[in-house]
């Protein structure tokens, strides 16, 4: 019993440096900014303006049905200026989250803005948007501003920031959540026949609305379809099994990364693949980031010495 409590305690509460969750915060905020500025802003009027294909009146009657929903737009319905203000504040909060200024407040405001946009016009959201909202919700309670952030700089009052460690329970919640999504995905796929008979990939790359980049000929064949369909099941299974054990963690992340990069090459799913890839940094221990930083520093110094000796 004591060892179970110790293991539980160590997993959720043993302080670790906040580097991984801080990196996740930066990547997530960058993705949110791309979402807002590249995908939503150019068509803002179409999605949320007076010319939107679906009216607020009908949304209220059919979708919202007087249920309690979190939507800042409805504080001043049908007022485009108010909608624009909410959107602009969400963008500012996202930038603030990126640089880590008042990190928890920024995460909260960004989440509120994105939830409002989702409630206002849910027809354009995919799983990637849902993933962003859920992870942002948890980031509000996290120590993601303890590293690589303006907050940390202001706290330490120095450019040479000492590392700060804290109980990683939010990072663990996010890791469990990411693993759970893969478990759910695999179980759902096993309910059908296409993934087990190897034809799923064949169909996936022939859906015209998902066309992305051109594919080499061999990828279109039936053998390749079988291989890639099973590979998807294996890589997803690794993300809720192998990823939890240090010796196999990197293998699971590598397989998962290959899966997402491969899907992104074949199919246009917007930011769905990118946001899942970003979540992989949560599984990489801070010591690995420090090792990488050290190697980069050594490489930089080596290049500098080369330049000096050449001149």
């Amino acid at each position, binding site marked *: 019993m004591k060892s179970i409590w110790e293991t539980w305690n160590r997993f959720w509460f043993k302080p670790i440096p906040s580097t991984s969750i801080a990196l996740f915060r930066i990547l997530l905020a960058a993705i949110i900014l791309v979402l807002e500025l590249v995908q939503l802003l150019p068509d803002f009027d179409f999605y949320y303006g007076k010319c939107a294909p679906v009216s607020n009146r009908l949304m209220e009657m059919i979708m919202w049905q007087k249920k309690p929903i979190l939507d800042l737009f409805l504080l001043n319905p049908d007022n485009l200026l108010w909608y624009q203000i909410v959107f602009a504040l969400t963008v500012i909060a996202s930038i603030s989250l990126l640089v880590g200024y008042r990190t928890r407040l920024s995460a909260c405001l960004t989440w509120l803005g994105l939830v409002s946009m989702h409630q206002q016009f849910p027809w354009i959201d995919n799983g990637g948007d849902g993933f962003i909202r859920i992870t942002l919700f948890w980031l509000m309670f996290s120590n993601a501003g303890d590293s690589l952030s303006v907050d940390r700089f202001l706290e330490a009052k120095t450019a040479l920031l000492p590392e700060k460690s804290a109980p990683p329970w939010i990072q663990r919640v996010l890791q469990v959540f990411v693993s759970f999504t893969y478990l759910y995905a695999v179980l759902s796929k096993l309910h059908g026949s296409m993934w087990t008979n190897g034809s799923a990939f064949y169909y996936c790359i022939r859906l015209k609305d998902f066309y992305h980049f051109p594919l080499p*000929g061999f990828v279109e064949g039936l053998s390749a379809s079988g291989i890639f369909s099973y590979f998807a099941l294996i890589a997803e299974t690794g993300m809720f099994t192998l990823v939890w054990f240090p010796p196999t963690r990197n293998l699971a992340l590598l397989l998962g990364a290959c899966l997402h990069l491969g899907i992104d090459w074949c199919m246009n799913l917007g930011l769905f693949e990118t946001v899942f890839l970003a979540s992989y940094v949560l599984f990489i221990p801070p010591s690995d980031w420090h090792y990488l930083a050290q190697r980069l520093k050594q490489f930089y110094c080596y290049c500098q010495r080369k330049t000096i000796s050449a001149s």
Partner: protein
Amino acid sequence: MDCQSTNISDMAQSEDTTQNIVEFGILRRILLSVLLISCALAFLNLRHSLRPVLEGLGLYQTWNLFSPDVRATNFYVSALIEYEDGGLKMVEFPRMNLLSFAERFQKQKMRKLFVDCWASPEMKPFREDEARYVARLSTSASAKPKTVRLTLNWSPVPGPEHFVKRQDVPPEHNRDTYFIYHVKAEDLL
């Protein structure tokens, strides 16, 4: 950047001395443990009961992309507009396979709307709004729409037993008109 030689063990040692450690007390650990376990149990047992709350907060999401089976049909929606003067006009919404790479990324959310949602049964209550939107788009001073027909253009993807290459996937030649709307004057305001 300081380029004095350092190694990993030096760095690890310096970490030990410079780390600023925040610890949780035992009470906080127990409370958080109870909270985490309760949340997990509540989520597993009451998932459907919790759905309205999670939806209200934008936190409800399923993870069954391309499952249990992959869709085996290509389709897109178009609208045929008949004007008061008898003229006809076909309106197509952005089709991803006809856009450039950059446009596909930028307009990706429209794919979700116009392919996954626009003709789906869940959108049935919004059909009139859809048609009114198309009518507004197609109105000019000289041309007033009289009727809007929303049409689903589709074709099945030939199965592996009738193997086709990606570029030979047949066009969406089947057409089903799933909604006809007679435009009113106030729709165009």
